[in-house]
């Protein structure tokens, strides 16, 4: 029952899922902060600084969470997956090394200057530090996505005595799925941050913190989201086409197609049954999946039954998790499209007195509640997307090169179980603390603007709020 491989996989999935939450925020939030900072520099308008001041706190907190969970990630390779480095270390190694050298140090050092240096260094240096931090997080995304994409679409190497040796670094770095994955991830990060900012700003607005800083943050977030979500859908579609070419079994699982067919419907709902090798309760739009994947209504889509060994063992990933996580991601994306465009429409309406646009005032209360509910929708879509990608690659760890089983460490299962339980406990507590502290900061900021002038000093003691955790 207790199996080191299974437990190690669960542990890896738990660790990376926890880690990715925070980079997803810091990658784009760094650039958003730079935007606030540069707007302040050029306009001298204090509301940009107010927005910067609030969001830099969220950034610092997210960054700390990202760093510590990232350190866990880098040890995982050795403690749980030693086979990975032994077989593909010649390729993964340099990529990870470049990430550490070109990204991690840059971020870490300039973060100190960005957070503490405001009054210690000249303005240009503080602005540059903000830039370098944002640039560093983007570099780290680039290198890690290169590695991850290479694991999906490996090329530029040869196998000598069972060990991969690099032959062409250009081909390794610019492997076929890298550009799609990189841009899709960057966009995912910007969307996650947009909805985070919109949600928290809506929350502040609802509890009465209607400052101009909240207003500009909200506007920035809504317009960014509305602009980027169509791009994301387009890139996602292209990403799918790329996957169809290189990992057809994954696409078959995503679409829930068992037999190779033409004119495949787009399934909105289905319960894939792995035993019977068919779907139950299908609801679909005829021909649409073929159209999306081949751009022809009766295009052919390979089915899962093509990926079964002679003896009947499936060579494709488990279908239900891939099928469903893909739908969660796309569904969230559609919701984001709806929400951000509706918000733009509401904010651009003329005011009833004809004096300009309604702006944030134009957003009705229920709509604001909706935005609050969507605060972490980006996390949901991102996790679902990664689950599609990664589970869809199984049983391969590096597509066609090595399986997950070959990489796993020979550690007693009880040991892995104990570390897994410990990590999970820590993660649950920290996630709770993180989310509640963000809303606590939002409440404190709103209070600060309205009541603080009359209640100097002990604001924390005066107002008892729902505790963190």
């Amino acid at each position, binding site marked *: 029952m207790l199996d080191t491989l299974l437990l190690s996989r669960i542990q890896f999935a738990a660790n990376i899922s926890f880690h990715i939450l925070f980079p997803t925020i810091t990658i784009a939030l760094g650039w958003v902060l730079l935007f606030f900072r540069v707007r302040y520099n050029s306009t001298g308008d204090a509301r940009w600084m107010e927005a910067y001041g609030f969001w830099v706190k969220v950034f610092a*907190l997210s960054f*700390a*969470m990202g*760093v*510590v*969970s990232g*350190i*866990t990630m*880098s*040890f995982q*390779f*050795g*403690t749980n997956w*030693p*086979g990975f*480095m*032994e077989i593909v*270390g010649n390729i*993964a*190694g*340099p990529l*990870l*090394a*470049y990430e*550490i*050298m*070109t990204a*991690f*140090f840059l971020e*870490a*050092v*300039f*973060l*100190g*200057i960005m*957070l*503490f*240096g405001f009054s*210690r*260094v000249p303005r240009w240096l503080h602005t540059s530090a903000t830039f370098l931090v944002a640039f560093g997080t983007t570099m780290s995304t680039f290198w890690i996505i290169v590695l991850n994409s290479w694991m999906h679409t490996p090329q530029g190497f040869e196998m000598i005595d069972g*060990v991969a*040796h*690099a032959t062409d670094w250009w081909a390794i770095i610019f492997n076929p799925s890298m550009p799609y994955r990189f841009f899709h991830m960057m966009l995912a990060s910007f969307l996650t941050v947009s909805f985070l900012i919109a949600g928290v700003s809506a929350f502040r607005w609802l509890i009465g913190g209607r400052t101009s800083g909240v207003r500009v943050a909200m506007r920035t977030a809504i317009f960014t989201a509305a602009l980027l979500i169509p791009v994301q859908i387009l890139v996602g579609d292209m990403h799918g086409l790329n996957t169809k070419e290189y990992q057809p079994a994954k696409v078959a699982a995503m679409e829930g197609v068992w037999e190779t067919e033409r004119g495949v419907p787009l399934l909105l709902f289905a319960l894939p049954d792995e035993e019977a090798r068919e779907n139950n309760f299908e609801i679909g739009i005829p021909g649409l999946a073929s159209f999306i994947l081949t751009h022809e209504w009766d295009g052919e889509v390979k089915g899962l039954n093509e990926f079964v060994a002679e003896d009947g063992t499936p060579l494709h990933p488990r279908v239900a998790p891939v099928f469903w996580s893909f739908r969660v991601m796309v569904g969230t994306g559609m919701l984001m499209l709806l929400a951000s465009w509706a918000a733009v429409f509401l904010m651009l309406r003329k005011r009833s007195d004809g004096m300009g646009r309604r702006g944030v005032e134009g957003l009705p209360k229920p709509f604001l509640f909706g935005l609050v509910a969507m605060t972490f929708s980006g996390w949901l879509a991102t996790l679902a997307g990664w689950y599609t990608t990664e589970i869809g690659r199984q049983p391969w760890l590096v597509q066609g090169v090595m399986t997950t089983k070959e990489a796993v*460490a*020979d*550690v007693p299962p009880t040991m892995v179980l*104990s*570390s897994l339980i*410990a*990590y999970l406990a*820590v993660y649950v507590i*920290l996630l709770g*603390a993180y989310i509640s*502290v963000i809303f*606590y*900061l939002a409440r404190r900021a709103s209070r600060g603007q309205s009541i603080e002038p009359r209640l100097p000093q002990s604001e924390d003691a005066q107002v008892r*709020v729902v*505790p*963190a*955790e």
Partner: protein
Amino acid sequence: MYTFGDPTQWLPFVFAGLMGLSILIYVVLDGFDLGVGVLFPFADDEEKDAMIASIGPFWDANETWLVLAVGLLLVAFPSAHGEILTALYAPVAIMLIGLILRGVAFEFRVKAPAAYKRLWNNAFFIGSLMTSLSQGFMLGLYVMGLDWTLGHVAFACLTAVFLTVGYSFIGATWVIHKNSDALQLKAVDWAKGGIWGLILGVGAVSLATPYVSPRIFEKWFDFPQVLWLAPLPVVSGLLIVWLWTMLRRMPFANDHWNWLPFVAATLLWTTAYGGMAYSFYPYVVPEKITIYEAASAPESLFIILIGSLFVLPAIVGYTLLSYWIFRGKAHELRYD
């Protein structure tokens, strides 16, 4: 291809050197900020804030040296990396959880509602303690050849305590440098207590290593070499005496030279570390795998080396910039 000699010979050596260097930088830099965490319970609330301010801008970059060290182990010596880290599975997990707790506590203790500050202060202390203890434990077990026998575990428990006390010592010298008045005086006392951990730790490892391995014994006590190596223990001894006399005379007039104990402590770490590196060379897994056997393919190491020639000087440069920007006393540093 062979203009610079055989790359399968010198590349592993260079990478072992780089890895050794980043471990050394790590134990000095994160050593002092972990030490500050270990000393936390001895400080009152205001002093805690001052102590955090003295490491706030640095800790993240300090920890990155650990990522680099384990990264170099992983990229340059893949098979050794698996061997070492699977053998150290449990202490690594404890260390990681410790690092998580203390890393997030930096932020939470000032951002969470005030009523929770105590809790996060405790998390900071416990996280630092877990990290230091498990690193000391790993050191001990590594020295003993990575075998989990009762005797070795007992030894590793000893080194766990010594390293923790050693970290708190270097942490105290950092506080002496970065803080003033009552807290500085307190830190002088902490340092006086902590120095014993360092002496015992360095002593225990120096005595145990040759005892565990006849190869190392020969390396240290064979005739011509012994003359060569004699300066190492002598220098360490002198450094300890110097530190002790300094600490007894602190605080100095006008607070001049308040950074000397930290520098002396760093030198002491470096000599002790140098001795250890000498003992273990050329092994990366003690007595089992040499750096030459474990090294990855030269073409991959080359790619990294070329990058590091450009990047490492830049890293050193902007790290120094940051220490320079945040030079002087820490108490004006404020951020929430």
